[in-house]
């Protein structure tokens, strides 16, 4: 790997690494608008100008169009570089409207941020500004204000290179250049939210979020989307227990920088009215639901009690379920009803949306294979069960009927299964707990607790810990770290995985047939 120098810091990076990325690795942020790691290089904003050292002396050039090669040395903080940044800011702002007080990008606007970092000049822009079209409704999720645009062309490239829809274009030329759609058309794809994300300024904003909350009040917690088995990496943005938006988080091996629009809604139900808030037995809130459930399991007997794993539930919850069965109800039947969530649109679009709308199908499959003897939907229909304990899976809708005499349901929201269940146990929503999920690539990824569980809900693995205790043998799954360690020791394909070491981007399971080896390090996208 070639060695490059950034401000005299020598660093080894793969050949061809973009110098903005290389500088980041060396600890230097090069400001930029048009550069995006997952779009082609446009080089138009000129904000990333640096001085490259050449035999002829230092030469100003844009870092985004420089690739790492042996001996390349750049300066990102020289006086000349700082002067260029300041002048680029001045040019960008000369025709920019003074909208900040009413602009929802405020607080995460690169014009604001970079002005503070690199601008700080006395305004000389006394000429008339060029007027453009404001407040255009261009899609289900997006409002466009062309005056605020800095013509970086990220959205144009997104439409050309990611969705292939080619819908946005920079029209006209010179200082009348204006971002826009073909008259009479609207954005028609399922990835509109990304346009608001990648727009470095307030030109493209997300209707679902705009004016909901100033961003400086929000905290961000890393998570993954539970909308389908792709499990795009996300940031959950929340304040005082309320989730305001879910944004994609960069993971070059999963979702690059993107997520789909339905996925952005995956946390919209956190505080919804149909949350299950307290344990009920036969429709009545009770303090001792776990004891009642334990008693009913014992009464039914292992032979007529069934357990259903949940492909919407975390790996830890499913592990806890299996441990409860193993320790307390040997002989009870365990089922995994694979398949699509009824009602969800089952489509794989070749981008990120997968037909399998369950975020942990691969995790359930992994544990099911390890446990052995797990029944499917047909087995469940054919089984003669007195009591069925269901973990976060709406099996009534899935099966189109009730396979057991009674149901105990562990879940987050009301649904037909919860309606029918005689015992209902509230569990934490994905944003309310620490846990892991396994996506379709068999990548084990963490979710983190952003808000406190609603009502009396606890993470499902803790609820099952309580059930185990009530049955006589607690599975030891109250802590996600310890639970994960137990799985990693027991399940061969998880050997060597460490909860903390999953990091921000997750780790792949060991391959099925080959001997266990640590997952390959995550490669940096070019």
């Amino acid at each position, binding site marked *: 790997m070639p060695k490059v120098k950034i401000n005299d810091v020598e660093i080894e990076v793969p050949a061809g690494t973009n110098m903005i990325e290389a500088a980041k690795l060396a600890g230097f942020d090069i400001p930029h608008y048009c550069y995006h790691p997952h779009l082609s*290089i446009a*080089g*138009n*904003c*000129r*904000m990333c*100008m640096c001085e490259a050292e050449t035999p002829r002396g230092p030469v*100003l050039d*844009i870092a985004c*169009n420089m690739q790492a090669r042996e001996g390349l040395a750049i300066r990102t903080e020289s006086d000349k570089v700082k002067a*260029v940044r300041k*002048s*680029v800011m*001045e*040019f*960008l702002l*000369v*025709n920019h409207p003074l909208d900040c007080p009413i602009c929802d990008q405020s607080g995460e606007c690169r014009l604001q941020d970079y002005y503070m970092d690199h601008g700080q000049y006395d305004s*000389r*822009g006394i*000429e*008339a500004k*060029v007027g453009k079209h404001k407040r255009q409704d261009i899609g289900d999720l997006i409002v466009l204000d062309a005056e605020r645009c*800095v*013509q970086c062309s990220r959205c144009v490239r997104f439409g050309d290179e990611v969705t292939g829809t080619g819908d946005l274009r*920079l029209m*006209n*030329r*010179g*200082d*009348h*250049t204006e971002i826009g759609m073909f008259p009479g058309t609207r954005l028609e794809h399922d990835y509109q939210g990304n346009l608001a994300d990648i727009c470095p300024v307030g030109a493209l904003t997300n209707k679902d979020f705009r004016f909901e909350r100033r961003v400086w009040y929000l905290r961000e917690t890393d998570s993954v989307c539970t909308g389908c088995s792709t499990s795009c990496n996300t940031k959950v943005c929340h304040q005082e227990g309320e989730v305001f938006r879910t944004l994609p988080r960069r993971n070059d091996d999963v979702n690059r920088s993107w997520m789909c629009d339905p996925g952005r809604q995956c946390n919209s139900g956190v505080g919804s009215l149909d949350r299950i808030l307290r344990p009920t037995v036969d429709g009545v809130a009770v303090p001792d639901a776990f004891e009642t459930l334990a008693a009913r399991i014992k009464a039914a007997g292992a032979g007529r009690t069934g357990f259903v794993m949940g492909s919407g539930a975390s790996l830890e919850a499913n592990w806890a379920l299996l441990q409860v069965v193993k320790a307390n109800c040997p002989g009870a039947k365990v089922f995994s009803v694979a398949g699509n969530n009824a009602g969800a649109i089952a489509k794989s679009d070749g981008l990120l949306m997968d037909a399998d709308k369950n975020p942990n199908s691969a995790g359930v499959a992994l544990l099911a294979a390890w446990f052995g003897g797990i029944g499917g939907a047909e087995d469940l229909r054919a089984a003669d069960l007195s009591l069925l304990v269901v973990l976060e899976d709406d099996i009534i809708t899935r099966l189109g009927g009730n396979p057991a005499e009674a149901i105990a349901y562990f879940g987050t929201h009301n649904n037909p299964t919860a309606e029918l269940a005689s015992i209902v146990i509230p569990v934490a929503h994905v944003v309310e707990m620490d846990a892991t999920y396994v996506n379709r690539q068999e990548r084990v990824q963490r979710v983190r607790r952003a808000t406190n569980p609603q009502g009396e809900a606890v993470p499902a693995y803790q609820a099952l810990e309580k059930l185990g205790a009530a049955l006589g043998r607690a599975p030891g799954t109250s802590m996600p770290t310890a639970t994960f360690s137990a799985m990693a020791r027991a399940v061969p394909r998880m050997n060597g995985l460490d909860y903390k070491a999953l990091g921000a981007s997750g780790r792949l399971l060991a391959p099925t047939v080959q001997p266990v080896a640590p997952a390959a390090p995550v490669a940096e996208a070019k």
Partner: protein
Amino acid sequence: MDFPRILSGNWDVPDSHLLSVAKSRGVYSQLPRALAMAPAEITQIVKDSGLRGRGGAGFPTGMKWSFVPPAEKRQGKSVYLLCNADESEPGTFKDRYCLWLDPHLLFEGMAIASRALDCHVGYIYLRGEFRYIARRMEAALAEAYAAGLLGKNILGSGHDFDLYLHVGAGAYICGEETALISSLEGEKGQPKLKPPFPAVEGAWRSPTIVNNVETLAVVPWLIQHGAAAYKAIGTEKSPGTKLFSVSGHVQRPGVYEIPMGIPMTQFINEYAGGLLPGRTLKAVIPGGSSVPVMTPAEVELCSMDYESISTHAGSYLGSGGFIVMDDTTDLVAALTNLLRFYAHESCGQCTPCREGCGWMHQILCRVRDGEASEVDLGTLRDLADNIHSKTICFFGASAAMPVQSFLTKFRGEFLDRVQRRGAGAA
């Protein structure tokens, strides 16, 4: 002075655009010779001749050609030869004469170049305003095709070269070679980032050579007379003849083919007929509107070649488009006029040029109208400095250099126009 008219020799011949007339004047006589040569031999002649690109940058043509990767390194990609006939640099109008009066000379030059470059498809990118020329050129192309001078197996040599016209539609920036390529590809005419350079990765990501009309039209003469004969004309570093356009306040504006290196005063006073009676010289823009302006004292020092203008006037020969301004000229209005042009023509792609050209024009309008202060002149100068060499292509510098040079060399005239409210009242 005795020198060959390499480019304009047929311009006075009636119907010189017709194939029969062109052939009678020796056009296409060098094509069979060139087709019999090894491609490297042709490139070597061009290299040895010292011919420099006539579009404005003055880059050595033979060297440019030699940047095309050899066939074994092209991964089967075609090589494209593009003729830049997007003549639109203010003050420049020489290619229009070549295209209208001697299209076959250009075709012959391109066919010879195609042989040197192992290229089989070429395009002439003609500015949209030249559609009336396009119609004549289409007819000329048809004649050349019918005579086997273009197309498949030219003159039985086994060499194929298809040549097409591509007509622009009103965008100065398309004269910039990568913008020309974008435009040809069906995009907005916006320059591309370099690297990669067109010779390696140009049109449709294939190796591409873009040459000016005048440059390509010289090639047949080089084949006929050899590099040494060309080098014998002009100066050591600026060999050959060149077409100079002269406009503005002279008695005989027009296009003149002259050897490089003659005194600039001789060009203005003899060829261009000198100033109108009773007038004195105020300023000259020597290389199309984009190059720094010259003072009369600098004109006295310079000769008509690349080095002299750069050494004595800090300016450029550029496209050889001379704009002569006499003492009646309002230089503030002249510069304002030019910046209106650049603001109108900026492609809008990169920040400094997109926002800066219009801004500079607005300030200049206020200076011209007596509504500006000395502070504005400082801003103007800063903006020009902040655009120059900070942009994707050379357009930014082209807009900045007139501002920088007018403000420096004719500062008094600008100061006279700004209200001297400056320090205290501003």
